[in-house]
């Protein structure tokens, strides 16, 4: 008994030395592996797509491991410069950015094209966590107010691109910091009230026609079954026809016969549900829950307000991905461009997400040395 305990201690110390949280890593790996199978099925059974996705997973893991080596408190020093540069880049995107898929999201620096909004997914929670943790918790009202302003600037810049999904994720990452920092319930109530008051303004002045259309389609998908309602109708048919056991891997007719749009990207959950049924969905949800719980556990164990708030915000934002994606694909929410995290095919969001988990792992493994 004792010797095994020592072994475990040794093992743990090995993972700790390379700053990897093993349970979290297992959860992430199982998601990405599952994702590979679904991507293969959804992508017309082309091995090229799988190879590309494997490459992406490799890069993402490398990024995660690299970031996990950085002591998390270092970010405090870099919070303000990173935030300022990030805002600058977002401004640059609006001025010189490349248009792709009907929105201006890409910035071309020499040979690389990248989306500054992706970097902001990490920078904003770092910035807000740093700002809030400068003072005692629970955070005071005027600090919260300033924090709100800080969140609002990148959110609006990104919403203007327009990229509703990302601006939603960034806004929630900031708001989660404020919530975890102990914003009073009265304030939360007031904010909810303000948000609902703000909604019509958003509708009238800020949302583009196609975004409004998405919301209208969400409310009444059957009114335009061949037009904008097509996505959501086909997606619900795919999910519903999966039943309890699913149609089997590579056997989903909605996906294989191309009735389902954006099968391997945003709507991959519908492919998964069609082929693996309610049983598959339950397992997937459990894996997501396990990752979220592990993330919150690490946040709770962290010994600094900054690291606690940062790990907590990153974890909760990860769940927002899950909720918004599954919600929109199954018809609970309007369609906004949010991928199913670590399962959907596609580059940038996976790297950003894994970088976020790199930070969480750093917070989980560096604490002994930082405390």
């Amino acid at each position, binding site marked *: 008994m004792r010797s095994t305990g020592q072994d475990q201690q040794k093992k743990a110390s090995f993972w700790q030395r390379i700053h990897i949280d093993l349970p979290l890593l297992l959860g992430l790996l199982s998601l990405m592996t599952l994702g590979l199978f679904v991507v293969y099925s959804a992508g017309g059974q082309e091995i090229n797509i799988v190879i590309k996705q494997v490459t992406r997973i490799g890069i993402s893991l490398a990024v995660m491991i690299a970031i996990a080596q950085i002591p998390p408190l270092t970010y405090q020093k870099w919070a303000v410069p990173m935030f300022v540069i990030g805002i600058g880049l977002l401004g640059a995107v609006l001025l010189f950015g490349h248009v792709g898929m009907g929105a201006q999201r890409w910035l071309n620096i020499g040979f690389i094209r990248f989306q500054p909004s992706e970097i902001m997914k990490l920078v904003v929670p770092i910035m807000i966590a740093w700002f809030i943790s400068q003072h*005692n918790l629970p955070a005071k009202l005027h600090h919260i107010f300033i924090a709100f302003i800080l969140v609002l600037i990148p959110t609006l810049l990104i919403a203007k691109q327009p990229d509703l999904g990302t601006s939603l994720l960034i806004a929630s990452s900031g708001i989660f910091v404020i919530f975890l920092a102990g914003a009073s319930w009265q304030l939360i109530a007031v904010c909810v009230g303000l948000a609902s008051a703000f909604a019509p303004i958003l509708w009238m002045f800020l949302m583009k026609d196609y975004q409004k259309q998405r919301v209208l389609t969400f409310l009444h998908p059957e009114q335009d079954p061949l037009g904008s309602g097509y996505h959501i109708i086909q997606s619900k048919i795919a999910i519903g026809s*999966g039943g309890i056991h699913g149609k089997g891997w590579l056997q989903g007719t*909605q996906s294989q016969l191309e009735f389902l749009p954006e099968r391997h990207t945003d709507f991959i959950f519908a492919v998964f*549900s069609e082929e693996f*049924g309610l049983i598959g969905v339950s397992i997937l949800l459990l894996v997501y829950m396990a990752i979220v719980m592990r993330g919150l556990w690490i946040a709770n164990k962290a010994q600094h307000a900054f690291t606690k708030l940062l790990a907590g915000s990153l974890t909760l934002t990860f769940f927002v991905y899950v*909720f918004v994606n599954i*919600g929109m694909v199954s018809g609970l929410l309007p369609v906004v461009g949010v991928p199913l995290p670590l399962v959907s095919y596609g580059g940038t969001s996976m790297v950003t997400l894994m970088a976020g988990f790199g930070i969480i792992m750093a917070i989980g493994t560096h604490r002994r040395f930082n405390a």
Partner: protein
Amino acid sequence: MIKNKRVIIRNHSAEANLFARRAFIALIGIFLLSLILFNNIFSLEVSSYKKYQTRSNNNRIKLLPVAPNRGLIYDRNGVLLAENKPVYSLEIIPEQVKNLPQTIKEISKLLNISAEKQAKFFKAIKRKRRFKPVELQSRLSEQQVALFSVNQHKYPGVRVDARLKRYYPFGDLTTHTLGYEARINRKDAQRLERENKTENYAATREIGKLGLEKYYEDILHGTIGHQEVEVNSQGRIIRTLDFTPPIPGKDLILTLDIELQMIAKRAMQGKRGAVVAIDPRDGSVLAMYSNPSYDGNLFVHGISSKNYKKLLHSKDLPLINRALQGYPPASTVKPFMAVLGLKDGAITPHTKFWDPGYYKLKGVDHKYRDWKPSGHGSVDITKAIEQSCNVYFYNLAFKLGITKISDWMEKFGFGDYTGIDLSEESSGILPSAQWKRARYNRSWYTGETLSVGIGQSYWSVTPLQLAQAVTILVNKGNINIPHLLKATTSHTSDTNKSSTNKSTTENVHYEGKAPIVLKHPIYWDIVLNAMHNTIQKKHATGHPGFVNTHYDAAGKSGTAQVANKAQNTKYDATKVKENKRNNAMFIAFAPFKAPEIVVAVAIENVSKGGGGTNAGPVARQIMDQYFGKRTFSSPVLPLPKGVK
């Protein structure tokens, strides 16, 4: 160790507690939201599973209709009268062609396809999915098909598509009887809708428009088949899930003899009129030909408006089936009048009338003339028929009165549809006092009764009716319904490949009608005997056409006035307008002892002579052919099994 200088006093445990509380609340929130997600998925995948499964299947499974092959039509000896011939068109599947403009250029050069067709093709491909075939040229000639077949390997994605279309090998010889098949138009579609047949015609493009093709449409068409296929979102067929083969339409075996038909056409060359031949033993129509005719094949591919106008406005009215149109029967009604006179007691076989060349009603100046100005002298019933004596029948008609005449003639089917299996039949007119009242709101004049007595006045009879009435006469009152369909052959295509297709032929049974019964059947014989004399006796009116036949024929001629001529003038065909000239009629049957064939002939506006000299020879040519002096001996195909 990194120290944050700005933090002066921090209550770490209070902050940790606060965070732990908030994290816990967040976790509960996450649980709740996950529950909402799960609940929604559960309702989709479990509660509404059936609904979405159905919708998913509706997305991917499509039923493609497969048209049945139309039944063929044979004559009584198995000669093919209507067949389905492949018509070829050149089709291209754009996605399978590497260099489309180049390919089109080469093929067009090879097959001599017009620039117009090429432009049309390039327009058409824009509207269609890239995996759907697009037609470049329709109705390829056999030469074009051969030329392309040799070069086909060079052009993947280009193919020759064959579609079956109706073809009538005998052309105008059969059109009036067979009718034709042509593209379903809006009216046809509406009728199919009303009759709930739209589904069965989902893959069918043509429908019977006329004649037997129309009358037996339901038998000829067959039952639609279905191919159940899986399609993707663009409608591309991925695979076939199930196949229900169509049931081909039944073949029709007709009572017609195409060789008699050919004789009829040859005999009617240059004449307007019709010939009908019926086997009196069962009512089988052996020949039915109307001249001039036209080629039904023209209509199968859609007739050009130029050709159609030509047919429509032709003075000879080729579109009309004269076998089913009314003519004044003239003297051909005299045998029927004679039977009535005997039966009614108005005359006996020995009753004689004096014929001075005319007949006068008491108190009226008008002279009802005989065709022979000098008259026939003393005439009994036999001589009256042989010589076609008008005055005898004026006397008889006067004695009988119009009501007795029309009541009697109705029994022979005059003035009514015969019930033949064609929809274009006209009922003709059988005049009576009531009819005239209804039609003209005038009362009946006795003078008109006299005209009716010699088959003139309003009386109008179709050649088919006339032939049918003669069959009743030669059958001594027994009535068979005239018909063209002898038997049908059905094909069952087995899905099991090892067993060959089965064909079963069924003869069609026709019910007769209640017979005409005479108290003294001898009256039939007296009249039939007189008809025999009419042909066999020298100088009798029917003799000229039937000199030296090797079979024993009987008959009666008729010459109908088309226009009224003034009193005391002489008819001279050369001085009368063509369309006012007399019509020639003839009825005949043979052999006299046991009749096998009845022929009725009507010829319009003859330039010289009457029924005996114009229509009689036509009837004779039909009979010559029938009784073995065959002019045509075309190779006859073997009969399908089961036909007697």
